[in-house]
């Protein structure tokens, strides 16, 4: 009557068993040396306003947050779901009831035992306060706690991506006895002061201007873990300073290092420093050219196709990003579970682009231009967006389209322009995060055309697309769901709702001698429970 539940349950059962074994006896990973206890690891942070990932998304909160807080499950290599605070779970045949059995001797850092009430409280908190709360848990109608260590979620419709959302990064288990005092969760003082979770590390020192230091949780519910004694996160905002610290080894482990392809080359030549682009599949950081579809000329699909033919993303990724990224082929990152490469492709062909523009009614005018537009460049990823925008400007000039680049002086200015739809075109990017319902639907859903950043700000609306999105949101059979998403990606690319740029160059830089770096598709946003330092 019950089956194990997951997004891809067909291949999950053996993996769950393996994960059980792994978490009980062996550390996951490929290192050969025997892991040993002890040592201090220095990472870094760009600064954070809260340490509670339950009320804030993003890497700055998520990286330390996943160490301080535990979740019901973890997401391991190849998206396998492994038990964490939930030792097992089962799903009813109609996929509408999910029952979790919790680990019995788990305690928060202040010694209070964790019960189903904390889980219920946490899920309700995330649903109400996290930016993705509604897309993750909108279908959770009620939560029962029949026994102290048993939690039952009652769903109004199946939620195929549910398990992925139950990891500490997206649904940290928060102590009800601390937070349930009627204060606004987003501004709760305990998100920054004396933060109490149940994860592998505890907060020792939190000086927001200077440093966050975490120390080993001696009473962690997984025996003999974690291996590290402490993790330090000095605050380093300046990217150049960060590169030099990485080079010198003052930072030993830097997920989301923010380095540019040029820095990568420099760092690769340093002895003892390594770099990997693994660990970003789930976050799925993609870049795109967003055109305001409400007005001419971009309301005309043929104009958009002409632009797509003029922008050679292959050239961009190979030459401008040194071959360290791959061109985007649609709204999903190549590392996403539902990625499909089978989408319309627009060959680089300036002549074709020119004749398409002629036909669309945009011939070269008396001033030598077809038309002109302003391209906004946001402030938050200049290393990616500035070269992209400059390349687009040069390519458009070849088509006699004049592009004026407008660099946002700060984040708020850009957000204001885009979210009030007061723009013609902008460089943009977003996260898949990792279920498409969270990170992708928001850009295409007709209901999500809102004055909110990273919603459907370009104003794309298509009834057929809406229907497919709705179907994919509740399809629990993995292969069937994959098929729907393949169609969605093809349609997005056919309609050119956005013009996809090369994916982000996201890299983790780390020193020699660190064992068991997380091989989760969430990389550095996963718990560092098994990480150890070699001699």
């Amino acid at each position, binding site marked *: 009557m019950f089956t194990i539940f997951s997004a891809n349950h067909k291949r999950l059962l053996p993996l769950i068993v393996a994960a059980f074994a792994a978490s009980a006896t062996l550390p996951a990973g490929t290192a050969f040396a025997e892991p040993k206890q002890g040592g201090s690891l220095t990472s870094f942070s760009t600064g954070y306003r809260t340490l509670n990932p339950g009320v804030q998304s993003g890497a700055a909160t998520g990286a330390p947050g996943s160490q301080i807080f535990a979740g019901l499950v973890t997401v391991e290599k190849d998206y396998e779901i492994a038990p964490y605070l939930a030792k097992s779970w089962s799903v009813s045949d109609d996929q509408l009831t999910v029952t979790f059995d919790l680990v019995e001797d788990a305690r928060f850092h202040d010694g209070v035992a964790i019960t189903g009430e904390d889980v219920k409280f946490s899920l309700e908190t995330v649903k109400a306060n996290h930016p993705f709360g509604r897309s993750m848990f909108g279908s959770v109608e009620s939560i029962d706690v029949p026994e102290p260590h048993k939690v039952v979620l009652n769903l109004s419709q199946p939620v195929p991506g549910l398990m992925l959302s139950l990891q500490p990064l997206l649904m940290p288990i928060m102590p009800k006895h601390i937070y349930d005092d009627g204060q606004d969760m987003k501004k709760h003082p305990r998100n920054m002061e004396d933060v109490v979770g149940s994860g592998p590390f505890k907060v020792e020192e939190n000086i927001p*201007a*200077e440093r966050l230091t975490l120390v080993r949780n001696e009473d962690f519910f997984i025996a003999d873990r974690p291996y590290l004694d402490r993790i330090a996160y*000095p*605050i*380093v*905002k300046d990217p150049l300073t960060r590169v030099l610290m990485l080079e010198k080894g003052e930072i030993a482990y830097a997920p989301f290092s923010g380095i540019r392809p040029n820095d990568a080359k420099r760092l690769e030549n340093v002895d003892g420093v390594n770099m990997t682009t693994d660990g970003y599949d789930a976050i799925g950081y993609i870049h795109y050219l967003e055109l305001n579809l409400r007005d001419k000329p971009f309301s005309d699909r043929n104009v958009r196709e002409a632009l797509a033919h003029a922008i050679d993303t292959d050239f961009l990724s190979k030459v401008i990003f040194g071959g360290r990224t791959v061109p985007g082929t649609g709204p999903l990152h190549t590392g996403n579970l539902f990625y499909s490469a089978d989408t319309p492709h627009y060959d680089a062909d300036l002549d074709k682009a020119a004749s398409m523009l002629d036909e669309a009614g945009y011939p070269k005018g008396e001033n030598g231009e077809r038309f002109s537009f302003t391209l906004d460049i946001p402030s938050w990823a200049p290393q990616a967006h500035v070269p992209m925008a400059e390349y687009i400007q040069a390519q458009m000039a070849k088509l006699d389209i004049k592009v004026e680049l407008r660099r946002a002086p700060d*984040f708020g*200015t850009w*957000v204001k322009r885009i979210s009030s739809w007061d723009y013609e075109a902008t460089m943009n990017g977003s996260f898949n995060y990792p279920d498409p319902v969270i990170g992708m639907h928001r850009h295409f859903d007709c209901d999500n055309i809102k004055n909110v950043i*990273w919603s459907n700000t370009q104003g794309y609306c298509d009834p057929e697309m809406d229907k497919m999105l709705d179907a994919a949101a509740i399809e629990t059979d993995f292969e069937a769901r994959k098929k729907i998403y393949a169609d969605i990606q093809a349609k997005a690319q056919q309609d050119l709702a956005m013009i996809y740029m090369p994916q982000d160059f996201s890299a983790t830089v780390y020193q020699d001698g660190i064992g068991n770096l997380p091989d989760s598709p969430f990389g550095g946003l996963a718990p560092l429970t098994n990480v150890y330092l070699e001699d």
Partner: protein
Amino acid sequence: MVKSAPVVKSVLRKIASILLLLLAVLVLNSVLIYAAPGDPVEALVGEMGGATPELIAELRATYGLDRPLWQQIGVYLGNVVQGDLGHSLYYDQPVTTLIASRIGPTLLLITTALFSAIIVGTILGVFSAQRRNSTLSHFVTVLSLAGFSAPVFWIGIMLILLLSVSFPIFPISGMTSSDGTTSTLGYAMDVAHHLVLPALTLGLIYLAFYSRLARTSMIEVLEADYIRTARAKGLSRRSVVYKHALRNAILPIVTFAGLQFGQVISGAVLVETVFAWPGLGTLAFDSILRRDTPTLLGILFFSSLMVVVMNLLTDLLYRRIDPRIKTS
């Protein structure tokens, strides 16, 4: 006693004009910043990774941003007059607490940088003024040109490359090491070790400035009639230079030191960012990017307060150094 009465009176008059000036600064700052496009909630929501329109409206209401502009400014000014600088939108802390927690590192950095620059700069200037065509004099000229024209963040990065990467003598960034030393002496040594590069970077600009100022002012003074008289009296060279010339030449230095001590926060913004120094400069920088209006206004108010207070102190110091001012 009799003599101090006009001093007290003039100081009181000064304080009154200072208060007026501060009020003007406050009004101007708040109007400018509140009128700038974009609002903090947009920035906040962006950093959170997006939000629903309901949440955005709720946040606006919480921070009073849904009220008309003139009301927001009015409420702010009213609070400041009562000594309340408001609440940081980002950190959710009183702005005064926030500034208090960051002022220590900044004061440490700027006093170290400024005082070493003044002392070393004056010495260099005085020496080079006496031997105008010597190597030292040319060196001072080149140094001051370079130090004055090179961007401060560039100097910072170059110093890091030289003294942290190529010759790893000093740490690249931060104010303390993460290994948690417990003894007070160990802590002080650790901070001092981290302080060298940022203070050197910030100090170099001012060193350039003061060596140049001391040189010019000294040259001018050395040509004055009373120096010739002093020499003619047969006083020793040492006595002429240090007793007669330097005491006069130092006046412009004191003036500028006083003025600059207040303004040095602006230089600290860049240096603190490059070296991840946890002071007011980084806070100001972040507040601009985050549109954290109350914090930014608080810092601006605080720096203008510093400027006027330093001016007042300079004024008083002047009376000590230059007896002519007392009588005039």
